[in-house]
């Protein structure tokens, strides 16, 4: 029993690349620190295709965008099915979530419902997709970085995230989420923003994608997660905000890699989103 839990712990550390990992002790497993050249070609190819699909989406609008993202999604799913079980399949399937989230974010928004409900609708689908990918790949929550982290680190990154909300708000401007008034409306809006922005995006980008990238590319996993975040934020249509998102993603990616947990990035991202979308619109005009 003890042996089994130690083996599980080593496996999860190897895939996420946390501090003090012992992956090199595992026989027959890729040492953290080595880079698989085939993985570089795989990531480069997927990145190029995703870039084209995103360009179609931005230039031609949602209808063409949905088609382009659907083609990319089907391509990635087919590719993942052709690959045997292992790091390449894990990375391909993790990256397939990006066009899926894009599809949902292009098709679900409607003027008749408040923006806050959009987060709920898209987020529920995205959370379900993440859980299904984990089921398909037999991943545990520990494998995607859901584990304890030093409380000091979590608090520190949370505070930094709250401060980062100020430039984010100034760059992106106010967004009316359409939440109800009063304490209940504020509480519901806060919960949705924290769960469907902070937790969801970190679980997707740092938890699933970065851990898959780290398994094949070592430190390149951070680059993969930053590139994925930047591409997804490109639909904000604001170059300054895209650069800001890339820098914040780099910070969160490095924190996640150092600690081997997504707890601190979740705290930082949740604080950033909560202050940007809920607190600052009430304080600043």
């Amino acid at each position, binding site marked *: 029993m003890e042996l089994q839990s130690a083996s599980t712990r080593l496996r999860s550390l190897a895939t996420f690349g946390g501090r003090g990992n012992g992956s090199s002790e595992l026989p027959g497993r890729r040492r953290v620190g080595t880079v698989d050249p085939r993985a570089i070609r795989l990531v480069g190819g997927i990145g190029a295709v995703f870039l084209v699909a995103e360009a179609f989406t931005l230039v031609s609008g949602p209808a063409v965008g949905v088609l382009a993202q659907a083609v990319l999604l089907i391509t990635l799913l087919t590719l993942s099915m052709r690959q045997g079980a292992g790091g390449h399949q894990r990375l391909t399937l993790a990256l397939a979530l990006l066009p899926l989230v894009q599809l949902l*974010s292009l098709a679900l928004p409607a003027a008749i419902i408040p923006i806050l409900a959009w987060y709920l609708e898209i987020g529920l689908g995205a959370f379900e997709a993440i859980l299904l990918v984990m089921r398909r790949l037999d991943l545990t929550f520990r494998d995607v970085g859901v584990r304890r982290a030093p409380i000091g680190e979590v608090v520190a990154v949370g505070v930094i995230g709250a401060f980062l909300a100020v430039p984010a708000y100034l760059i992106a401007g106010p967004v009316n989420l359409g939440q109800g008034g009063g304490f209940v409306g504020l509480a519901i809006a806060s919960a949705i923003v924290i769960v469907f922005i902070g937790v969801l995006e970190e679980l997707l980008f740092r938890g699933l994608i970065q851990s898959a990238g780290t398994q094949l590319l070592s430190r390149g996993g951070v680059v993969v997660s930053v590139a994925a975040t930047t591409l997804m934020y490109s639909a904000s249509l604001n170059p300054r905000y895209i650069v800001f998102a890339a820098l914040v993603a780099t910070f969160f990616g490095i924190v996640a890699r150092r600690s081997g947990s997504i707890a601190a990035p979740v705290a930082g991202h949740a604080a950033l989103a909560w202050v940007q979308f809920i607190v600052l619109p009430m304080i600043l005009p």
Partner: protein
Amino acid sequence: MTSTVTRLAIDSLAQTPGQALASPAPALVVAILIVVFLARLLLEVADVSRSRDTVRTLDVVLLPMLIALAFILSTRVLEILPLG
């Protein structure tokens, strides 16, 4: 703006119920859902190796899109009801 709610989506929103009903993006999602659903059904009855893995891979797309379908239908009802 975030990775899920984007300026692109806000800028291209349908402004009237008629435009919303005619907007192609949700219709395309429903079409993709139907294709994936049919493929899953065929794979379930097909006697091929690795079909279980393939079905579980298709579930990654199918189940979130079923949620999307529920939201799309409920939104359309919300848009149509005031017209009646």
